[in-house]
C-alpha cells in the first residue's frame, strides 16, 4: 500500500467517524453513553467551514453549561424538533427525504423507493427492529458509513478500481440525496430546535455534508485526471 493510500484511508476513517456520530445524533435521543462520549470528545475549533465551526461551538457551549437534567432536556428537544406535535406537516424538522422532496410533504414517497433500491443494490436490508422508513436521515447517513467501510476495505486489498467505484457511489448518493434535501431540513432544525445542542447538531451536519461533497468531487476529479493521463501515456 502506498503512503498516499494510507493517508487516504486515514481521511476516510475520519469521515466514517463523523458519519457514525451524525447517524447516532439523528437516530435516537442522547443517552448516558453518548453524553459521556461527547464529554470526552475533542471538536475541531477551526474547520474552514463556518457552519461546522458554529455547530461545534454551540454543542460544546451547551454541554459545558448543562445541569444534571440535561438528558431530559435533550430528549424533550429531540421530540419537539424531529417528531413535533402538529398534524399539518409543518410542525417539525421531519428527518425524511420524502417529506422534503414531495410537494405535499408526505412520507414514503419516491425518494424512499429510490434509496430502498440503492440499499438493495448494495446488498443491504433494513433490520426488522428498525421501524423508520428507509429515507430516514440516519439510515442515509449510515449508508454512507457502509460505503466508506467498503472503500477502506478495497484500498487495503489494493483494489483501486473497486475503491473508486465506491467513492463514486458516495459522491452520487451525497449529491442525489443527502445534499438535495438536508439543507432544507437544516433550516427547519434551526427553526424548531429549542436547545443550542440540536441547533449545533443541525449545523455540524450541514457543514460536514457540504464539505464532504466538495472533498469527494475534488478527489474524484484528481482520480479521473490521473486516469486520463495514464490513458494518454
Amino acid at each position: 500500500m502506498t503512503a498516499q493510500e494510507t493517508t487516504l484511508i486515514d481521511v476516510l476513517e475520519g469521515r466514517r467517524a463523523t458519519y457514525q456520530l451524525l447517524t447516532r445524533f439523528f437516530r435516537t435521543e442522547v443517552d448516558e453513553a453518548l453524553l459521556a462520549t461527547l464529554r470526552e470528545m475533542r471538536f475541531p475549533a477551526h474547520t474552514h467551514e463556518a457552519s461546522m465551526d458554529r455547530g461545534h461551538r454551540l454543542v460544546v457551549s451547551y454541554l459545558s453549561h448543562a445541569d444534571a437534567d440535561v438528558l431530559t432536556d435533550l430528549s424533550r428537544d429531540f421530540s419537539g424538533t424531529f417528531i413535533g406535535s402538529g398534524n399539518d406537516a409543518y410542525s417539525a424538522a421531519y428527518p425524511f427525504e420524502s417529506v422534503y422532496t414531495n410537494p405535499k410533504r408526505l412520507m414514503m414517497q419516491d425518494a424512499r423507493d429510490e434509496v430502498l433500491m440503492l440499499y438493495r443494490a448494495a446488498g443491504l436490508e433494513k433490520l426488522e427492529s428498525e421501524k423508520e422508513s428507509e429515507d430516514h436521515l440516519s439510515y442515509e447517513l449510515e449508508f454512507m458509513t457502509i460505503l466508506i467501510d467498503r472503500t477502506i476495505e478495497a484500498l487495503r486489498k489494493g483494489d483501486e478500481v473497486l475503491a473508486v467505484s465506491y467513492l463514486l457511489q458516495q459522491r452520487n448518493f451525497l449529491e442525489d440525496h443527502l445534499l438535495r434535501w438536508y439543507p432544507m431540513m437544516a433550516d427547519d432544525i434551526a427553526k424548531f430546535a429549542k436547545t443550542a445542542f440540536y441547533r449545533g447538531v443541525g449545523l455540524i451536519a450541514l457543514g460536514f455534508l457540504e464539505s464532504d461533497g466538495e472533498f469527494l468531487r475534488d478527489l474524484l476529479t484528481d482520480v479521473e485526471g490521473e486516469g486520463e493521463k495514464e490513458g494518454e501515456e
Partner: protein
Amino acid sequence: MSDIDVFTIDDDFDPLAEIDIEPPTPEEQYVADYMPPIPDADKSIVPEPVALSPAERIDKLLAGMPGQKFRVLAVVQAADADKPRVAADIVADVDAAYPHTKSVYDTARLLRLLTEAGAVEGEGGEGDAPIVEQDEEICLTQDNFVVGEDGEEYLVVTDAAPATYRATDAGRAAVAHYLDAGALEAIIGEEPRYAPLYARIMSMVSADGGATTPQLNGAIDSDPLCAEPRRFCGYFIDKLETCGLIEWRDAWVVTDLGRAALATGVLDEF
C-alpha cells in the same frame, strides 16, 4: 445476403453532434439540476408561545400534578433561603422530606419545572476561566480550547459550575396561597355542622403513628351527622388532604400545616 450484412453499426454516430449544447459546470450540475418543489415552505411556522404570568404558570404546573402539589411547593420552600442554594442541597432537603414519592418526576426535574414556571430563579455558576467567545447562544471560556498534539486547536466540554437557585416573589406567593393555615377554618366555614367530625379526624391523625383508613372510617361513618345526606369519611379526608392539612405516610398523619391550623384554636370548642 444475410440481415447482418444489411445493418451495420456506425460507431462514430453522435445524435447530439449537430446540437450546440454546452456541458454544465460541476457547480451547475450540483445546484440547478433539480430543486425539490416545496411551494408551501413558508407554512413551516413555529407558533408563538402563549404568554402567561409566573403566577398562572405556577398554578398550571400545580394543577397538572395534584398528587404532588405539596412536594412541588416544598421545592420552592427549600429554595427560599437567605442565600441562593445549589440544586444538590435543595434536592437533598426535599428528598429527605418525601422519601417514598411515587412521582415520575425526580426533585431535580421539579426544580427545573419551577424555574421555567417562574417560582424559582436560577443563576448559572461562574467558572474561574476567562470567557473568550460569547454571543447570545455561545459562551466559551479559555478552558474550552485545547491545543492537540498535532498543533491544531480543539474544543472540549468542561464541567459546568453548579448553578444556584432561589425562590421568586411569585414562588413565595404560591406557597403562601396554597400552604395556608386558614384553610381549616375555611373548610369548617363551608359546612359548620361537620366541625365535630373534622375535630375528631384531626385529633386521630395527630396521634403518634397517625390513623389508618379503617380506624377513621369506624370513627366517622356511623356518626349521625353523616346520615343525611349520607357522607363517608373519605369526603372529609379528601378536603383535608387537598388543603395539605393531612397526608398519607402509610397512615393518615397531620402535616406541619395541619398542626399550625390546629394551633389557631379553630377546633378547640369541639
